[in-house]
């Protein structure tokens, strides 16, 4: 090969620039999205939930959730009092995916509770990961890097809300991503998009125009297991004390 010194000196910086662009990877999929401008959470209004299972079905279709595993699910609470003793029954057939058969319980307090990842600001699951495969994104979403996950299951044990599972084929931990691929494009999550009564609503706590602020100001909101100080960002309206 005839390569003069002059050509060599031109080619080396060119090759270096090309290599830099290879290492930098492809540009962002959503160029207008700035992670520092958002802080995601969700509003769940138990008084509006009809237990239809639309959210569970939508999540499964949107995210290819394997059969028998749920990134979001619905629980039915039935609280009855017999001779002064309170009995709490909780059921969730197929995660509530196909709705609930009527129990015809008379005199019981009954309601549905949609559940999913609480996207805690101080999440126990990310703290236990030994390899940095699960993390809090800068915009407040708890995510999993499937390429880094070893499948050790520490996070599944650490989550106090039972939101994680091990994917049966990929052998990596999976959970609700708050539809990160949708919310970064300006869409809402699949569960919120499909909730017919508006019982679930995506909330951007950093957006001053988001209706969440008005709702939080005018309602008595609660999160699940507040004593664990996880700073959960799933805000429940009308949450009964029996719910765990």
């Amino acid at each position: 090969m005839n390569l003069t010194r002059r050509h060599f000196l031109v080619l080396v910086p060119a090759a270096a620039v090309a290599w830099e662009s290879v290492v930098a990877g492809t540009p962002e999929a959503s160029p207008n999205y700035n992670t520092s401008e958002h802080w995601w959470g969700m509003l769940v209004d138990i008084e509006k939930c009809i237990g239809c299972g639309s959210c569970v079905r939508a999540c499964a279709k949107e995210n290819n959730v394997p059969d028998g595993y749920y990134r979001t699910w619905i629980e039915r609470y039935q609280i009855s009092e017999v001779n002064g003793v309170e009995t709490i029954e909780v059921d969730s057939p197929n995660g509530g995916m196909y709705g609930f058969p009527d129990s015809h319980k008379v005199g019981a307090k009954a309601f549905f509770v949609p559940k999913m990842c609480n996207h805690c600001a101080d999440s126990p699951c990310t703290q236990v990961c030994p390899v940095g495969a699960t993390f809090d994104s800068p915009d407040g979403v708890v995510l999993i890097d499937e390429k880094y996950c070893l499948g050790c299951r520490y996070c599944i044990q650490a989550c106090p809300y039972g939101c994680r599972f091990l994917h049966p084929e990929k052998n990596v931990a999976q959970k609700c991503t708050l539809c990160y691929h949708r919310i970064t494009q300006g869409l809402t999550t699949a569960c919120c998009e499909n909730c017919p009564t508006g019982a679930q609503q995506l909330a951007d706590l950093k957006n001053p125009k988001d209706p969440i602020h008005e709702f939080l100001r005018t309602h008595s909101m609660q999160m699940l297991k507040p004593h664990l100080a996880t700073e959960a960002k799933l805000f429940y309206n009308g949450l009964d004390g029996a719910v765990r």
Partner: protein
Amino acid sequence: MKFKDAAHLLRLAGVFVVGLLSFVLVRGYLVPKSFGQYGHYRGAALTEIKAQPISYAGHDTCEACHQDVLETKNKGKHAHVNCEACHGPLAKHADNPIEIKPELLDTAKLCAKCHEANSAKPKHFPQVVSAEHSAGLACKECHTPHSPAIGDGGKK
């Protein structure tokens, strides 16, 4: 006193230096470039998670073409129900509206998913026992699904 076997120590130090160098080099090669970009994780994972394709196009996309349905829907009780909540995921239809058409829905089964009576549902939510209410007749025989009150354009 002069230390006699300094060469031993130098050799040991050499081994340490080589070990340290190879550790730094191997680490630099194995740890992905974006690790630590935002925190103790691979920053590129965010881009990879974002790249997942969507199945539900979203209500705004439906509105762009189906203004007529939107007008009917806005008049009735289903104004706040998004299209895909009943019609299913239609991002593919939105990308290729001519070749990919949504399925026609069976209202005898579809409507019951929400409106079948259940003691755990909120009391104000409209519920029927479908066996008593219509005896298996498709709901759209009387109600228009997009604006369901009787008299909003149903057949009866």
